[in-house]
């Protein structure tokens, strides 16, 4: 028996390994299955029951003209993929890679058409802010999950591994040759040998204590990519959604209150009862952009004017009772009659005729991530990435509905190009020492009899992320955050899991996520420190202007000899050009 067989509890061999099973991962797998003999999909949760995709509310963007021509929706014939691309670059504040943006807008209609041909039911067409034309085709996230899961199941050469937390990429001679991880249901240590690996692991919203996204999105893919030396771009732009619930605790991050604020004139108040948005956007008030609303709320909180739970108040009390009651009847179907998701919101909210909700911005989307080119290559042979958690496409911010488009365009591309690579590659050799070291590291917290509590440490990481690397950033806080990160990092080798059972040990999973969360937070902090201006989803309180003269640049983060290194790069601008000026943050050209 070779040492690999002794070290790993299970060994799996495949042409292409896809990590993540949802919007991007499923699409990558479907394309790869047409081209390769064997495809493995490993996912931390359950297929169709994990990730952000199914939680989407959900508009998916294609140009308005294609929406009319392909689906008979009331689209505007004046729109085109070029105009869509133009809006993406405006919203991304020109940090997008324009070659990728062009592909994105060109391929979006055909990919949505495939989804519809597989049975996805589409509904209306919406016109969200940031879009010159109505481009949001309504397809609920649960519909994505249903259709993609059904298609995945049809392909005989796709093998699904659920509850499989990938923890490390395996490398040999600078190439990625597979991955290792823990099967949560059994606690078994898996080694998966693959000619190509595609990461479709989503964002890292859970590094923050307030998030709209599912619990498992702790940035594992971003951190693993970083640790094998991949480049990460635009990491300073995690996006926040304003007015999500902060109370009750059980509904922390639920965006019902945000959705509500789009339909009735809600008032955001600080603890003095001031309608503080008048200071930040006197004209649009609460109808300002998501970024400005989030930043304003956080500045109020940081200045000591927040609510007891650390948010601000969102009130309907100024409205007549019968108007409030009637509004619930005409709200769109996803929030009508005080229903949201599976909740009857009346069980959880105070009486809105007399009381305000306590709300807070919540981490919602990851604009940056692993830098990819048009073939979803990461710069490391055998390693591909797509979907949320990759950078270059959205730049400094994304328009509404365009995250789902990203999964449907770039998932298939990753599947195609990774398969081509795999078909021409030999199986790499697994480095046995590397595998043994990984196994030891993963099991160490289980073997300790005392030490640091992983759940307490996770909460501390989230507090540091919120306080110093959150919605509002400035040099002093970022430096303090980096100090805290260092202090927390020094405790990682003392983390101890009290539950010694191998089977479905969530305390162990929490322990394994800590380093990932910390790595991601460090990348956000370092990249934010470099950017001496405010742009898109990044607000630097000490540099509150958007500087289109000096800062139409990408910040790239990469691990160099075990240390974090940042570099600044000019954006290759092409068709879409910013006005070269310095202007107030939040005031669009």
């Amino acid at each position, binding site marked *: 028996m070779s040492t690999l067989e002794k070290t790993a509890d299970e060994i799996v061999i495949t042409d292409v390994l896809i990590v993540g099973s949802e919007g991007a991962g499923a699409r990558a797998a479907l394309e790869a299955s047409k081209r390769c003999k064997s495809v493995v999909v490993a996912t931390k*949760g*359950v*297929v*169709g*029951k*994990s*990730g952000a995709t*199914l*939680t989407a509310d959900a508009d998916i963007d294609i140009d308005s003209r294609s929406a009319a021509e392909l689906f008979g929706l009331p689209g505007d014939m004046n729109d085109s993929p070029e105009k869509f691309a133009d809006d993406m670059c405006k919203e991304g504040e020109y940090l997008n890679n324009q070659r990728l943006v062009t592909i994105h807008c060109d391929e979006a209609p055909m990919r949505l058409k495939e989804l519809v041909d597989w049975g996805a039911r589409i509904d209306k067409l919406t016109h969200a802010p940031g879009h010159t034309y109505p481009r949001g085709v309504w397809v609920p*996230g*649960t519909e994505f*999950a*249903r259709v993609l*899961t*059904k298609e*995945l*199941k049809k392909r005989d050469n796709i093998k*699904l591994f*659920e509850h499989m937390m990938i923890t490390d990429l395996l490398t040999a001679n600078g190439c990625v040759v597979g991955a290792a991880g823990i099967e949560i*249901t059994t606690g078994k240590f898996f080694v998966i040998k693959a000619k190509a690996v595609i990461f479709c692991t989503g964002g890292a919203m859970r590094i923050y204590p307030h998030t709209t996204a*599912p*619990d*498992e999105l702790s940035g594992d893919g971003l951190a693993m990519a970083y640790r094998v030396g991949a480049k990460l771009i635009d990491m300073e732009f995690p996006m926040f959604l304003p007015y999500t619930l902060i*109370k*009750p*605790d*059980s*509904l922390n*991050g*639920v965006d019902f209150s945000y959705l509500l604020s789009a339909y009735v004139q809600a008032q955001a108040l600080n603890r003095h009862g001031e309608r503080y948005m008048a200071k930040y956007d006197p004209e649009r008030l609460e109808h300002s952009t998501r970024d400005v609303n989030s930043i304003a709320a956080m500045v109020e909180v940081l200045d000591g004017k927040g609510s007891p739970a650390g948010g601000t108040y969102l009130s309907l009390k100024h409205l007549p009772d019968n108007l409030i009651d009637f509004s619930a009847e005409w709200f769109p179907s996803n929030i009508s009659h005080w229903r*949201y*998701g*599976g*909740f*009857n919101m009346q*069980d*959880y909210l105070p009486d809105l005729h007399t009381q305000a909700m306590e709300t807070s911005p919540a981490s919602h989307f990851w604009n940056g991530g692993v830098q990819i080119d048009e073939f979803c290559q990461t710069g490391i042979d055998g390693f591909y990435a797509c979907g949320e958690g990759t950078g270059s496409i959205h730049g400094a911010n994304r328009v509404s509905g365009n995250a789902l488009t990203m999964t449907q365009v770039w998932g298939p591309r990753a599947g195609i190009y990774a398969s081509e690579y795999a078909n021409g590659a030999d199986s790499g050799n697994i480095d046995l020492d590397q595998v043994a070291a990984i196994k030891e590291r993963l099991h160490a917290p289980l073997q300790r009899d005392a030490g640091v509590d992983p*759940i307490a440490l996770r909460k501390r990481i989230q507090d540091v992320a919120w306080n110093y690397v959150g919605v509002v950033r400035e040099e002093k806080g970022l430096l303090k955050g980096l100090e805290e990160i260092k202090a927390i990092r020094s405790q990682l080798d003392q983390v101890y*899991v*009290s*539950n010694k*059972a*191998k*089977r*479905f*040990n*969530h*305390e162990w999973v929490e322990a394994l996520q800590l380093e990932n969360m910390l790595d991601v937070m460090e990348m956000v902090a370092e990249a934010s420190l470099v950017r001496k201006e405010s742009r898109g989803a990044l607000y630097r309180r000490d540099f509150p202007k958007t500087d289109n003269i000096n800062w139409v640049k990408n910040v790239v983060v990469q691990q160099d000899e075990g240390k974090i290194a940042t570099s600044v790069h000019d954006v290759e601008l092409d068709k879409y050009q910013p006005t070269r000026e310095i202007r107030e943050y939040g005031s669009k050209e």
Partner: protein
Amino acid sequence: MANEVQTITVKVRRADPDVNGGEATYQSYSVPLEPGSTVLSVLRHITENIDRTLSYYRSCRIGKCAGCRMVINGKTRLACTTAVTGDITLEPLPGYPLIKDLVVDLSAERGV
């Protein structure tokens, strides 16, 4: 105004196929009832503060993934959207292979 915290008893069916031949037992936990408690927030309280060995699955927390389906006081419900107002008994979803405690193998359901 008296501000006493009400506590409830949460009875959970527990079984680990690796232990005692998978024999099931019921375990009771005493949990403070917070305003707006859901079955999921109660489970989270137990695993964070009382018993790290208890297993359950959840993802979206908003009633969309249906990954947290279980039997709550005899009825099949979603843990994340079911409000808790008094004592509860929790059991795993029947008809699926048991993985541990409240976690079952949902993959049989793929393609629904």
